C-alpha cells in the first residue's frame, strides 16, 4: 500500500511540474517574443571534442552579437542539440527543431552524413542552416535556398591533398582508407580521382567501419609498401589505425583530410602521427589574425582552447544573428523564409576572413590549408605548422551534377 501511495505522489508531482513549465516560459518571454538559434553537433561520443567546440563557438557569438535584437525587445536563446554524429539522431532532432516555431536558424552539423538528411527536414519549412564544417559537395550542390556553409568543399580539399602528396611529398604510390561515410568516402574518392590523374599509383582503396582491430587491413597494405597512406575519415577512427600501422612497421607517410584536425588525434596515436600531414578547410587560429582575440576570449570563458571549427561556428552564428536582425526590421519576429533570404545575402568580415555566399550557398572564397602535426603532446595541437595555404573559389554550380 505504502508503495502505491509513493507512486501516486510521484505521479502528482510529475503532472504538476509538466503543467508549470509552459507557464514559466510564458512569463520569461515578455516583450516581442523569443528568437532561438539551434546548434546541432555531436556533444557525446568519440567526436564530441569537435562538436562541443561548434556549440561553444556559436554560444560565444550569440552572446556577443545579440545586443541589438534584445534592444528591440526580443529574447535571444541558444538551444544546443546532440546529433551524436548519427544520421538518424540528427534527423530526429531536426524534426523537433522545425516543430519549435521560435527556432529561426540552425548552426551545424559536424558530419556531412548527418547534415545531408537533416537539411532535407529543415528545407520543409525553409529553416536556414549555416554549416561550420560540412565539406561534402552534396550539401550545397542540391541548390537548396536554406543551406549554406562557411567552410570549403571536399572536391577542392581532396585535390589539395593529392597535389600535396604528388608535388611536395613526392609520393609515387598511395594507399587509401576511408570510413564509408559520405564525408570520408567522398573526400577519399576526390583524392583518388585526382591522384590517378597525376600519375600516382593507387595501391588500394578500402572502406571500413572498424574502430579497433585494423590488423587485416594493415597486413596487405604493408606488403604493398605505399609511399603515402591517405585516411578519408575522422580522428577517432584514424588515430588507432595510424598507431597500429606504425606498430606493425608500416613505413609510408600519413596524410588525411580535415577530419584529422583535433588534438584527440595525438592523444590517441601519440608519436605515430608526429610529422603527418593533413589538409583543412579550417585554419588554426594562428593563421587568422582576427581569430587570435577569439581564441583568447574562448579560453578565458570556457577554460580550454577552441577546437577546429569553433571559429567557423562563431562566424556562422554571427551571420545568423545579423540576418535575423536584418529580417526583423519591421519589429516583428521574422519568418523563417525571410531569415533564409537574409542569410544568403549576408556579408560578414568574420574572424575566418570575409564571408559571402554564392548562389548555391557555398562560401565564395574559402580557405584551404595543409598542416603538419608538430608534437605528440595534445596540448600543443595549436603549434601545428601550416605548410601551405590557399584561397580557392568554390567550383561553379555547373561544375558538378
Amino acid at each position, binding site marked *: 500500500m505504502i508503495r502505491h501511495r509513493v507512486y501516486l505522489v510521484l505521479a502528482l508531482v510529475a503532472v504538476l511540474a509538466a503543467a508549470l513549465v509552459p507557464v514559466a516560459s510564458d512569463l520569461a518571454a515578455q516583450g516581442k517574443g523569443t528568437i532561438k538559434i539551434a546548434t546541432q553537433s555531436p556533444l557525446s561520443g568519440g567526436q564530441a571534442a569537435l562538436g562541443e567546440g561548434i556549440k561553444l563557438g556559436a554560444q560565444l557569438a550569440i552572446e556577443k552579437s545579440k545586443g541589438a535584437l534584445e534592444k528591440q525587445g526580443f529574447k535571444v536563446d541558444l538551444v544546443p542539440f546532440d546529433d551524436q554524429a548519427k544520421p538518424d539522431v540528427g534527423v530526429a532532432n531536426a524534426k523537433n527543431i522545425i516543430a519549435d516555431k521560435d527556432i529561426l536558424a540552425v548552426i551545424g552539423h559536424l558530419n556531412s552524413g548527418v547534415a545531408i538528411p537533416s537539411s532535407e527536414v529543415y528545407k520543409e519549412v525553409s529553416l536556414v542552416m549555416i554549416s561550420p564544417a560540412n565539406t561534402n559537395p552534396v550539401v550545397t550542390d542540391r541548390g537548396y535556398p536554406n543551406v549554406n556553409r562557411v567552410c570549403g568543399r571536399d572536391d577542392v580539399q581532396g585535390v589539395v591533398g593529392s597535389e600535396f602528396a604528388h608535388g611536395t611529398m613526392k609520393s609515387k604510390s598511395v594507399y587509401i582508407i576511408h570510413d564509408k561515410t559520405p564525408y570520408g568516402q567522398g573526400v577519399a574518392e576526390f583524392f583518388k580521382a585526382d591522384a590517378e590523374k597525376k600519375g600516382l599509383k593507387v595501391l588500394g582503396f578500402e572502406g571500413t567501419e572498424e574502430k579497433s582491430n585494423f590488423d*587485416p587491413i594493415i597486413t596487405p597494405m604493408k606488403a604493398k609498401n605505399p609511399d603515402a597512406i591517405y585516411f578519408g575519415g575522422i580522428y577517432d577512427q584514424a588515430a588507432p589505425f595510424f598507431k597500429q600501422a606504425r606498430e606493425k612497421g608500416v613505413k609510408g607517410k600519413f596524410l588525411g583530410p580535415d577530419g584529422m584536425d583535433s588534438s584527440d588525434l595525438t592523444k590517441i596515436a601519440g608519436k605515430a602521427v608526429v610529422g603527418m600531414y593533413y589538409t583543412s578547410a579550417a585554419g588554426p587560429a594562428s593563421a587568422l589574425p582576427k581569430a587570435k582575440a577569439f581564441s583568447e576570449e574562448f579560453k578565458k570563458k570556457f577554460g580550454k582552447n577552441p577546437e577546429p571549427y569553433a571559429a567557423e561556428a562563431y562566424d556562422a552564428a554571427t551571420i545568423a544573428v545579423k540576418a535575423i536582425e536584418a529580417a526583423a526590421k519591421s519589429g516583428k519576429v521574422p519568418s523563417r523564409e525571410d531569415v533564409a533570404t537574409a542569410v544568403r545575402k549576408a556579408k560578414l568580415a568574420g574572424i575566418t576572413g570575409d564571408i559571402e555566399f554564392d548562389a548555391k550557398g557555398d562560401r565564395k572564397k574559402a580557405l584551404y590549408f595543409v598542416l603538419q602535426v608538430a608534437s605528440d603532446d595534445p596540448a600543443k595541437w595549436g603549434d601545428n605548422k601550416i605548410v601551405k595555404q590557399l584561397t580557392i573559389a568554390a567550383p561553379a554550380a555547373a561544375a558538378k551534377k
Partner: protein
Amino acid sequence: MDVALLIGIFPQVLLDGITLGFMYALIALGYTMVYGVLEFINFAHSEIFIVGAFVGVEVMLGLKSAGLLDGLPWPVVLVLVLLAGMAGSGFLAVTVERVAYRPLRNAPRLIPLISAIGISFFLQDMIRLFESLWRNAFNLVYPTLDALNLRFELTETLDVSVKSLVVIGAALGMLWLLHMIVNRTKVGTAIRAVAEDQAAASLMGIDVNRMISLTFLIGGAMGGAAGVLFGVQYGLINPYSGFIPGLKAFTAAVLGGIGNIPGAMVGGLVLGLLEAFAASYLSLLTGGAFGAEYKDILAFSMLILILIFRPKGLLGEVVRERA
C-alpha cells in the same frame, strides 16, 4: 593477381587470425558456460567484457600517475592488470546475475533475455557516464608498455610482436586454467552436475545458487581477461567497444556448439581465422571489387553453412539433450 604477395602475407594473416580467435574464444566462454547452466543467453556479457578493459586501463593509468608503470617489470604490470580486470568483470557478472537474472529464474525464457538486453544498455551508459565524469573522455587509450611493442621482423612480411605472443600465451593459460577447474576439481564437478540437472544436483547436496554464481564469476573473469588483452592489443577502448566483439564471440559460441566449453574455443579460433583471412584476402583476390568490409558477410555465410550441416555446431554432440 600477385601470387607472391598472397603467399607472402599468409603467415602474418594466420598470426593475426589466431590472436583475434583466442580473444573471441575467451569471451565466448562466458556465453557458453552460462548457457550450459541456465540455458539462456547472457547478452550483457559484451559489457562485462568491456568493463574488464576499463578496469585494466584505470589500473594502468593509476600506476602511470604513481610513476610505477615504467618502474615495475612489465610481466608484473601485466599480471596485475589482468587480475584486476578479471576481478572487476567477475564480480560484476555475479552482481548482474543476482540483481537481474535470479529473480527471473522461473519466469518464461524470454523474460531474462530482455532483462539481459536491458542490463547491456544500462552498463554501456554507466561506463560512459562514469568515464565522462571521471576523466572527461569517451575514448580511453591504453598506455604503451615499450617491451610489449618489441617486434621481430622474421621476414619482410611477417612481424611477430611481443604483444600478440603475450595475448596468445595469456589466452592459452586461461583456457588451461578453466579446463582444470571444470574437469579436475570438486567445484567443477558440481558446476557440471548443476548443468546436467539442477533438481537432482540440489538433492545431492549441491548449493545450486552458489554454483550458478560461480559460473558467472568464472565466465565473467574470462571475459574480463579478454577485455584487458583486447585493450593491450588494439590500444583504444570506448564504452561501446564491447558490442561487436561480444556479438562475434556469441557467434563463435554457437559455431562451436553452445553450452560446450571446448566448442567455444574451437568456434572462437575458426571465426577469428575466417575473419582475418576474409578481410586480408578478399580485396586482393577480387581485384578490389570486394573489400575488407565484406569480411563479416563471408564469416557469417560460413556460419550459416556450418549450421545447416551441423545444426548443433562444430562440437555439438557433447551437448546433452534436456529431458
